[in-house]
């Protein structure tokens, strides 16, 4: 099926597949054949009752006519329009445009995405030059050495009648500094080269780690049995390109091994079958912390027919440090998440467990049961105030389950959130004009 189809094209396709004539379908839903023809060629927008009537006449879900790949295309075009309001692209003509010139629409959407990628690269590079601690340290080291060499060389060249002891001493210093300079400049060049290479592939070490975890579906069978080592897994992973990415993955897997030791696979699976995916019951059974039990639930292999489990963790700045997505609960690609997530409520109420049923605003947002808690990230001592980390486990709620309360509505990230009059809003949504 073509990616570019819109609602009208889908209606037409369904009708033809069922061997219905345009005139017959039009009569069934009470419109003229010529009007249906306009709809089928994406020349008229359609919604509401007529859409429902057409869907029922064709025996399909209304959403199967309206949703799909074209929704993403429309969203991207809307984003492109918002990015350049000066161009005054007509908002009402958007779907019409995408329907009538699908190729051009895809081209525009792709160019827009490319611009975003490039903007982000520029931002990262600018940021790196001003804030990269490694680069700053290298530059400082080099300039300090050059300063020492310049000053020492000045003394040797300009001091008439320099005593031999001093002369030897300064010669030795200059030799030492020259060696240091050679080393530090080589290290700097290697670092910059490595950076450029990494830049062309995956953005940041965090992105590498995430791609690595997605590939493994967050489960490492070889680390569940004795004998498997994080190092072997890291070495075998092609997606880990940079040293920083590998080091992040190594730290992640070392914790994984530790978690697996405390909640071994077979016993954990058995306990999950008995107790259900309840993090506190599992934590109690194994005598482990809540975050550990939550991580294990997210890491256990999904069995057939069982709902996938999602998880996010953030540090005290609210930055997501662990992300395991699941269908229907979107996580922001980059940038900050929705402040209404129970994850962030937990962060402002350390140690208080929060269980909440949520639904993401907008199309296709499923209903999820979340368990969130913020705990100290390290051992607590009197020497230092603890830094907190928050964790949130995300479990889908089966559609047949009757809920007592309406789920709390949350978003993904402000830019793509349709919620109006939201106290948590940081920036305008690019969606509201279209809904």
């Amino acid at each position, binding site marked *: 099926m073509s990616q570019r189809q819109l609602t009208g094209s889908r209606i037409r396709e369904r009708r033809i597949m069922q061997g219905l004539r345009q005139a017959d379908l039009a009569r069934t839903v009470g419109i003229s054949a010529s009007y249906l023809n306009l709809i089928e060629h994406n020349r008229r927008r359609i919604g509401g009752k007529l859409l429902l009537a057409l869907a029922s006449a064709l025996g399909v879900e209304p959403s199967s006519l309206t949703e799909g790949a074209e929704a993403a295309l429309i969203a991207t075009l809307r984003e492109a329009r918002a990015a350049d309001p000066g161009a005054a692209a007509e908002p009402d003509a958007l779907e019409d445009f995408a329907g009538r010139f699908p190729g051009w629409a895809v081209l525009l959407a792709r160019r827009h995405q490319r611009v975003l990628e490039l903007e982000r690269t520029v931002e990262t590079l600018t940021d790196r030059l001003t804030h990269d601690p490694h680069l700053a340290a290298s*530059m*400082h080291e080099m*300039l*300090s*050495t*050059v*300063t*020492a*060499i*310049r*000053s*020492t060389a*000045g*003394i040797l060249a*300009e*001091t008439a009648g320099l005593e031999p002891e*001093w002369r030897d*001493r*300064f010669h030795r*210093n200059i030799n*030492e*500094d020259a060696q240091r300079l050679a080393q530090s400049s080589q290290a700097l060049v290697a670092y910059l080269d490595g950076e450029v290479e990494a830049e062309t592939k995956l953005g940041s070490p965090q992105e590498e780690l995430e791609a690595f975890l997605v590939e493994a579906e967050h489960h490492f069978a070889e680390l569940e049995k004795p004998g498997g080592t994080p190092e072997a897994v890291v070495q075998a992973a092609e997606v880990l390109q940079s040293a920083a990415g590998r080091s992040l993955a190594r730290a992640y897997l070392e914790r994984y091994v530790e978690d697996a030791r405390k909640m071994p696979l077979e016993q954990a699976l058995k306990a999950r079958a008995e107790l259900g995916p309840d993090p506190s019951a599992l934590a109690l059974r194994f005598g482990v912390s809540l975050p550990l039990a939550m991580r294990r639930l997210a890491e256990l292999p999904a069995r057939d027919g069982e709902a996938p489990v999602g998880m996010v963790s953030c540090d005290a700045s609210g930055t997501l440090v662990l992300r395991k997505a699941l269908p229907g609960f979107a996580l922001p690609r980059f940038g900050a998440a929705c402040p209404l997530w129970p994850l962030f409520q937990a962060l402002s109420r350390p140690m208080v467990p929060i269980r909440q049923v949520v639904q993401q605003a907008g199309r296709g947002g499923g209903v999820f049961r979340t368990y969130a808690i913020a705990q100290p990230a390290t051992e607590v001592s009197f020497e230092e105030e603890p830094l907190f980390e928050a964790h949130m486990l995300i479990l889908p709620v089966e559609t047949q389950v009757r809920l007592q309360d309406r789920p709390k509505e949350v978003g993904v990230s402000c830019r793509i959130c349709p919620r109006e009059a939201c106290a948590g809003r940081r920036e305008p949504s690019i969606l509201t004009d279209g809904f």
Partner: protein
Amino acid sequence: MGKRVLVIEDEPNIIEAISFILSRDGWTVDTHSNGHDAVEVVRRKAPDLVILDVMLPGKSGYDILTELRHDPVTQTLPVLMLTARGQIKDRELAERIGASRFMTKPFSNAEVLEVLRELVPQ
């Protein structure tokens, strides 16, 4: 006996070179190489002038200068700041918190001597 200068810098070979040229120029040179207790050392040694590096272990040169400027005793003490970063905002920051002069590494020996003579007439 000449005027006394305190060099606060963590790079041993820079300390050695600066000490040499300053003492040849008639200064009595003291050195100190970390940020932690630099302010106390300034108070204790009471030099006529301080050469202060910005990047020091323990405490930054900016913080040290801020403390010195808040103490009536060292409020007007001439301070020459040294930094490996010559950006305008670094210079502005140094001036705002009260550096007498600001010099970017790598400097020449003659420059240092000249600035010192201006700050503390012999």
